[in-house]
């Protein structure tokens, strides 16, 4: 009987954790919105919407914050243009257009920049294609430049509606802030999409089921971008403390071990009477010491394939536009050996560096190959599409957290 009760409570707990996790970005978005930071709120709602397009709260949040976020980036673009930083101006205008595609001022401004600095617009497009524009931009905008961001007290903020069934309201924000990680500039969430933008490439977004490595927006103390950000422990209950105006740090969701930041000397502080217990370091996930010893495994995919790919490539035996073997990332490469029509299957080989780590026959669409890269980071290669006529296979590579 006791065992049965314990199981029931465990199930309730798991459900609560899952629900809280799903709404983490929306919760963060609401916090930023309440703090008068619509551009940061927008980014969090964007992540939530990408993870779950049916999330009504994300959609409502995007609708609410889009005009203010677009205005914020337009001002940033104007300021960058005044300072002659055309690369930043192009990126900011592109961001405005992503938020408000009908912003004619930004359309005209981008065309002007295109005339004089076509390479900068191309670079901005490359960032936009790889969907890391937001992170790059937020990292590029200097902290002092943000100081003149609209003061929340100056502009009346619309009330943020609370969902009655919002479980995360009672719980602390779901996204951990991890104080001991550096807040370096946002890195590539995804590299550029494949050469041919159609096909499953637009699955980029892009966008979908499981979240791609996205920047997590964190409000922090007066730490410039690229330095360590000491984070106070978030209170478990009650409204979030209002951060200092204009101090934002964008950090990509940590996926690989990062170098510790160069420590800055801190002024000596008086020792507290009682030394607080040190927080336990998070246990790192176990990884094989030798990535070459890892044997890839294959499983059949279920349901919709994920969309948070680092890269999507096409390999083909007969289509001259695509190579037979192609590098993915982290030393991983994939080669098509053969395809069959009935049933639709592909024979593929996976390489790590020069070494073939797997040869698998009869992989069907949506099959998932679990592999590790040269840094022993776990990845999944997913067979997205098989076209037997010219023996072309489209695969996506995603990181497994």
């Amino acid at each position, binding site marked *: 009987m006791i065992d049965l009760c314990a199981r029931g409570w465990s199930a309730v707990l798991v459900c609560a954790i899952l629900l809280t996790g799903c709404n983490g970005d929306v919760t963060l978005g609401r916090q930023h919105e309440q703090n008068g930071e619509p551009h940061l709120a927008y980014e969090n709602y*964007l*992540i939530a*919407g*990408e993870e779950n*397009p*049916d999330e009504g709260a*994300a*959609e409502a949040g*995007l*609708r609410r914050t*889009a005009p203010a976020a677009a205005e914020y980036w337009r001002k940033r673009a104007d300021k960058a243009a005044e300072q002659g930083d055309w690369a930043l101006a192009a990126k900011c*205008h*592109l961001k405005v*257009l*992503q*938020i*408000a*595609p*009908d912003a*004619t001022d*930004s*359309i005209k401004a*981008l*065309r002007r920049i*295109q005339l004089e600095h076509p390479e900068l*617009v191309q670079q901005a*497009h490359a960032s*936009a*294609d790889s969907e890391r524009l937001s992170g790059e931009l937020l990292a590029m905008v200097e902290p002092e430049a943000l100081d003149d961001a609209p003061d929340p007290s100056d502009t009346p903020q619309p009330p943020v509606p609370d969902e009655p069934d919002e479980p995360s309201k009672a719980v602390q924000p779901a996204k951990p802030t991890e104080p001991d990680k550096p807040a370096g500039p946002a890195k590539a969430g995804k590299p550029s999409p494949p050469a*041919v*933008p*159609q*096909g*499953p*490439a*637009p*699955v*980029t*977004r*892009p*966008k*979908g089921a499981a979240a791609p490595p996205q920047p997590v927006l964190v409000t922090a103390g007066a730490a410039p971008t690229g330095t360590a950000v000491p984070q106070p422990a978030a209170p478990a209950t009650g409204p979030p403390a209002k951060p200092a105006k204009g101090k934002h740090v964008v950090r990509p969701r940590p996926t690989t071990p990062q170098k510790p930041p160069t420590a800055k000397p801190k002024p000596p502080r008086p020792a507290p009477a009682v030394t607080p217990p040190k927080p336990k370091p998070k246990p790192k996930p176990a990884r094989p010491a030798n990535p070459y010893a890892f044997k890839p495994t294959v499983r059949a995919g279920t349901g*919709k394939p994920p*969309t948070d790919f680092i890269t999507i490539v096409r390999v083909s035996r*007969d*289509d001259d*536009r695509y190579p037979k073997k192609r590098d993915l990332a982290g030393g991983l490469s994939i080669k098509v050996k053969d395809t069959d029509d009935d049933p639709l299957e592909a024979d593929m080989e996976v390489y790590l560096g020069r070494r073939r780590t797997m040869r698998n026959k009869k992989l069907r669409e949506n099959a998932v190959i679990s592999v590790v890269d040269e840094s022993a980071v776990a990845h999944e290669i997913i067979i997205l*599409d098989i*076209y037997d*006529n*010219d023996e072309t296979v489209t695969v996506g590579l995603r990181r497994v957290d």
Partner: protein
Amino acid sequence: MTCPRAIYLDGAGWYSGDGPVRTGLRTGGYPGPVDRFHWQGLLGPVGALSDHMGANGNHPKVPQLARRIEQLRQVNPNGQIVLVGLSAGTSLIVCALERLGEDVEVDYVVLLSPSVSDRHDLTDALRHVRHRFYATISPHDGMLASAGPAGGESGRPAGLVGFRLPRKMTRERKKLLAKLIPLPWRPEYLAYGWDGGHVSATSADFIRAVITPRLLDDLPHPLDRPALTEKEATHD
């Protein structure tokens, strides 16, 4: 018979998508009227499957649509003609374009959640498009994921995975395919009512903010990324 004019084709078994599209185009500043071209059977939603499977070049409404476009063009040699279609309606648009006379062109084509096969060769249709040919793509389109391509073609619906480029590429074909511009779903579009779903691509806000600006400007929108870049299109 005046231009500019947009002609809208609904999806299979669907009769009310023209409302939001018309509203979106009007509020976005599109200056012309929006006509609804009725092509579905009389069974309504019940006949959706037969509409879907019959939406190919043999559909009796395809020559009618082609004739309508030719007449419009004859009366307005320089007026803007825009074709907008949803789901299986896009299949009729592509087939009608393929039937047009040699020099007859429309200005823009917008395929919303197209259920045309991704393997359909668009070269002949693109010959009759003066400026750009937009096609939305969404991996979240559950309806296209469960249905096959319209008209009984093989492959997968282009609204789910995008159009495939033909294997053999001539210089002319590349030039034509440079007009094809995929519009993949982005989470930003949630703010405009398109959640990646099949029918929500006709949301009035999405049409106003995303589609209409592209029809009012001869130059491509800065966010447009053609299927073949200019460099690829001119490279042998």
